[in-house]
């Protein structure tokens, strides 16, 4: 059965004032003043776990506090439904689609079941990702404003799956993508909404220096020496072996340690294999710290990022790359690959340094270690960039602007 998620109300808008300044928070209230009691429904497929749920858990209370009558609905389905949507997800990222043709009927049947249970009567309806895409059937006589919010990179979708989804998407009033590179040529207007992080979440809030130091020491990392860190799943697309090779080059010039921290090895056979390869490549170097962390490690990740000298993200492919956003928010100089959403965040030589190879990554790290004043400036500018574009409050502002625009357009 589908559920309406109770609105979490732990953080208040005023809590963001010390980070953003009074005028910025006041502006959110000004923008919302024309939207008081306007109804909004957000629909997605999970209340907990995953980036979309993480964003909605913060965004919904903020919009509610701003005076919008917002509801968050979560669709449900059997294992067969989620196997199909997982297959959709992989296929939309360019993989093959091996499910039988009748899987599309099963997908639509679950959409129909959920659709009949959830009354879609709000003025603004935001449907997140492909799982509930067929909810657009609930629209009657062009009522309400229906927007499809796509959090997936659609740059190279499997034609079978995209061929099935595209006609549904074209029935909406618009679509939102996280990057122009992730979008498709559609018949409907497309808007750019960056993903965002919450600066008050456990993963991003300020930490006491003692906690940062204590966490480093608990993992056997020397807080007094240079620390290079990549936070990511043990996944070949994150190129952890490339990071080890870049570190080995840097180590010829600088005394430093490498931290590779992430999860995914425990429940993923490929992750386990990658972890073994990384351990082998590091050749028992005591300065390489490989940390396979459980999912509940937000504070540890926060501390590792804050304790680092440089944050690395040497991905071969990437979605938006929120680990980069997290590093920038912590005023860390970032060296990252120019893939996916990373160049949207790392403006080369302004908010970080981009690289295209192992050698390039090593060179940029050496450059920053030799030029700490530049590293400090990049970190400072990186944080400023995140503050204005990639925080949850920026997401709220974009939704307010979208709603106002849709009202003005009609």
């Amino acid at each position, binding site marked *: 059965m589908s559920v309406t998620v109770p609105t979490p109300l732990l953080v208040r808008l005023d809590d963001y004032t010390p980070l953003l*300044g*009074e*005028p*910025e928070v*006041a*502006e959110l209230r*000004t*923008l919302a*003043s*024309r939207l008081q009691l306007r109804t909004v429904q957000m629909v997605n497929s999970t209340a907990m776990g995953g980036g979309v749920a993480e964003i909605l858990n913060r965004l919904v209370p903020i919009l509610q506090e701003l005076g919008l009558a917002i509801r968050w609905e979560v669709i449900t389905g059997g294992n067969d439904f989620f196997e199909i949507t997982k297959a959709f997800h992989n296929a939309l990222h360019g993989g093959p689609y091996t499910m039988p043709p009748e899987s599309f009927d099963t997908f639509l049947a679950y959409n129909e079941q959920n659709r009949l249970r959830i009354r879609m009567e709000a003025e603004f309806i935001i449907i997140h990702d492909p799982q509930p895409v067929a909810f657009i059937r609930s629209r009657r006589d062009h009522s309400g404003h229906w927007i499809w919010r796509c959090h997936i990179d659609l740059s190279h979708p499997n034609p079978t799956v995209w061929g099935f989804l595209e006609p549904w998407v074209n029935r909406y009033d618009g679509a939102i*993508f996280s990057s*122009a*590179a992730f*979008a498709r*040529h559609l018949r409907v*207007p*497309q*808007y*750019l909404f960056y993903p965002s992080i919450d600066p008050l979440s456990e993963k991003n809030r300020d930490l006491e220096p003692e906690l940062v130091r204590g966490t480093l020491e608990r993992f056997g990392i020397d807080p007094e020496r240079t620390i290079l860190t990549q936070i990511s799943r043990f996944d070949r697309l994150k190129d952890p072996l490339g990071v080890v090779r870049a570190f080995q080059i840097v180590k010829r010039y600088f005394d430093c340690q490498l931290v590779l921290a992430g999860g995914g090895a425990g429940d993923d056979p490929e992750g386990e294999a990658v972890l073994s390869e990384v351990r082998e490549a590091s050749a028992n170097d005591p300065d390489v710290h490989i940390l396979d962390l459980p999912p509940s490690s937000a504070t540890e990740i926060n501390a590792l990022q804050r304790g680092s000298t440089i944050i690395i993200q040497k991905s071969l492919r990437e979605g938006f790359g929120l680990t980069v956003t997290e590093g920038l928010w912590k005023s860390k100089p970032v060296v990252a690959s*120019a893939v996916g959403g990373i*160049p949207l965040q790392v*403006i*080369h*030589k*302004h908010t970080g340094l981009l690289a*295209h190879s192992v050698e390039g990554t090593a060179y940029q790290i050496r450059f920053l270690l030799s030029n700490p004043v530049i590293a400090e400036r990049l970190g400072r*500018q990186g944080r*400023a*960039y995140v503050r*204005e*574009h990639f925080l949850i409050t920026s997401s709220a*502002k*974009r939704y*307010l*602007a*979208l709603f*106002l*625009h849709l009202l*003005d357009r009609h």
Partner: protein
Amino acid sequence: MKKAEQPFQFKTASYLTRITNQVATNLKRLREGLETCSDTSIFNHTFQTLSRHHFLTQGFSNDFAQWVLAACNRPELAEHLASLDIRDYLSLAALRADFRRLVSEYCEQNPQQAEQSAFEPFYFYEAIGVEVPLQMEAWTLRELRDGLQNLSHAAFHFHFIASRLRLQLRTNDFSFWLASCLDLATLARRVNRIDIYTNTLESALHTIIGLVDRELDP
């Protein structure tokens, strides 16, 4: 203290970014895009980008120059494009014409480079503005100062940078009001001289507040 006949009405503008289907993968395509993209696209990549990147006070001018430098590795053309100062333009058509001219001249003189693939494509976006009045107005210089202290970045950008296109004058909303409603022409000129390329929005705003303070309490 003089009271104006017309108050200064503070407003703000929030911008949505719309993805168009126009993409440039080399300088030749950039030239074509500059010919056919919408005015809101030119606005987005020049006026609006100054707001998005205002904290970069060195080496960032507009999206076209940044892309030509970072993705095409053409520093000479990038410098020319970066040197176009939006304060010199009263219309987007004139600004577009100069961008197009500079890119065209480069492509004609460097036909091989014009067709070389960029590292990253350039996506043409459009800025869709939503204007909202703030519950603040100023009838006197002191009230203007009080209002300035409470302005967000977006509101300040709206009055100080985007205003030129609205006014069709080489000035901004503050200077225009100071000169025309309070007869403070010298202060208006000083405010208008503030360099928006080497200041952040915060530092430009603080400079204006400082100038107003000096006028209030010389």
